[in-house]
């Protein structure tokens, strides 16, 4: 089943001339993990905002085409309806935390209170979200006493508790240390395994290759490619779009070590090991 359908999406910010998103069309299956890549200003964040309806409901400007999330046409729906289908996690958890709640538990309850969820169900959902993000030990902590990784996991938990079908993450780990970002990636992966559709804009290509089912390459608001990571990262023209393939792909390309039986180069540590060992033999 298609969870996301984007048709001929065009968008221009107010008072600007160029299209931030230009004739984008693509479809995402339920439960897929999609990595959005591209250089800064390629349109990654704008696309994230179009998927949750901030474009065009908050950011006005020129809008054309359609975005359909779980059967709902974003451009023609109310933001509260959309927020039950799609949740977003921002780059910096500090911008997401309400600042008005004293504990992690209450912070996660905030979205549910606003949706008018009954108390008993609220408690269930919060406990489940805390568990999924491994945040149970921190439920009584003050949100601002958490480490960066913990805070970002709390931000994700507060979205998960709202039970969206789709979660959109805009560079969720750029502010975190390696351990914190690994915690967050693992948490996102477990959501994906539970059947949630994940859309993640990310600069760390090694991570994209490791976790994403498909990679959507954007450049100047246009869709350049949308395919399996090893296929997208094997392209010869990546530098034209201002991105570098994972280091695994780079070295395998230089040493001409392809994935067995395929015309593509490995994009993950495991695949690179296999291909390089095979080349040796």
């Amino acid at each position, binding site marked *: 089943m298609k969870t996301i359908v984007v048709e001929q999406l065009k968008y221009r910010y107010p008072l600007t001339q160029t299209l931030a998103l230009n004739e984008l069309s693509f479809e995402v299956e339920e439960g897929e993990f999609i990595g959005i890549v591209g*250089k800064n200003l390629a349109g990654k964040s704008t696309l994230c905002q179009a998927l949750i309806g901030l474009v065009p409901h908050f950011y006005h400007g020129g809008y054309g085409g359609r975005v359909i999330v779980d059967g709902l046409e974003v451009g023609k729906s109310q933001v509260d309806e959309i927020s039950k289908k799609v949740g977003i996690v921002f780059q910096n958890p500090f911008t997401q935390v309400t600042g008005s709640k004293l504990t992690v538990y209450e912070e996660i309850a905030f979205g549910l209170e606003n949706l008018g969820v009954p108390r008993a169900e609220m408690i269930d959902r919060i406990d489940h979200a805390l568990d999924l993000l491994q945040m149970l030990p921190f439920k009584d902590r003050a949100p601002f006493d958490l480490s960066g990784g913990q805070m970002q996991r709390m931000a994700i938990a507060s979205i998960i508790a709202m039970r969206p079908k789709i979660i959109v993450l805009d560079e969720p780990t750029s502010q975190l240390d390696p*351990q914190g970002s690994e915690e967050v990636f693992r948490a996102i992966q477990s959501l994906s395994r539970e059947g949630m559709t994940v859309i993640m804009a990310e600069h760390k290509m*090694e991570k994209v290759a490791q976790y994403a089912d498909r990679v959507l390459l954007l450049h100047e608001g246009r869709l350049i490619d949308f395919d399996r990571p090893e296929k997208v990262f094997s392209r010869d023209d990546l530098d034209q779009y201002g991105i570098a393939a994972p*280091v695994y792909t780079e070295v395998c390309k230089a040493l001409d070590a392809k994935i067995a039986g395929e015309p593509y180069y490995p994009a993950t540590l495991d695949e690179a*090991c296999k291909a390089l060992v095979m080349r040796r033999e």
Partner: protein
Amino acid sequence: MSFAYEAGRDILKQLSLEFDHRSTALIGQNGAGKTTLVKLLKGLLRPSTGDIFIRGINTKEVTVAQLSRHVGLVFQNPNDQIFKRTVLDEVMFGPLNLKQDRHAARESAVLALQRVGLADKLEANPHDLGLSEKKLVSIASILAMNTDILILDEPTIAQDFAGKERIKEIIQSLKAEGKLVLTIIHDMDFVAENFERTVVLNQGRVLLDGSTREVFSHKELLRQACLDTPYITQLAERLGIPQTILTAREFIEWQQKNSERRETNAQHM
């Protein structure tokens, strides 16, 4: 030197370190004390016990303003640093406060902005820029002060490939000018490619300190500090390459040499 925000709870515990001209990466997990250490070096905080000397000057005996001639610090979050209405004013602020006249300050600022690739944004309001460009403005502000010591707190945050390459070039050129570049950073591949020396902080103490290659050869100790080795180092290790590989280039060369060796061996058999 030790430091505590609250009495009795030392964040940094009896550190002894010397920094020389080598470009140095400061790594460690969140909360290890990295940012506290650089604030001490910049004179924004004073040691609880022990002393810090910057070019022979005890940081306890001078003002932050006096020290700013020697040490420049780029904050992790550019929003904490930026406060002017135009990019040019923002970058001129440092040189003007170092008592350069307006003309010279403008020249320093324009040069610094050229270096970070923002020469076409002089009149832009820095708050209208994206996070990655704001970060470059905050770096330019410190470059314009032409200090001997530059401290960068997470310079590659939010940078795409081109932005990272630019920061790499800036670090290399500062190194060539004989300046000390001390950088807090979480991107281990960037550390491996760019820094001669790496210092690992763990729970307020120095866990490892040496050449970057040497530091990344201590996989187990790094793991204890919740750190990983660079991706390429991990690949080389998985393939059983005995030495610590730091860059893609080293990896490729090692593989090529090795397969030549195997071919020669095969011919001799």
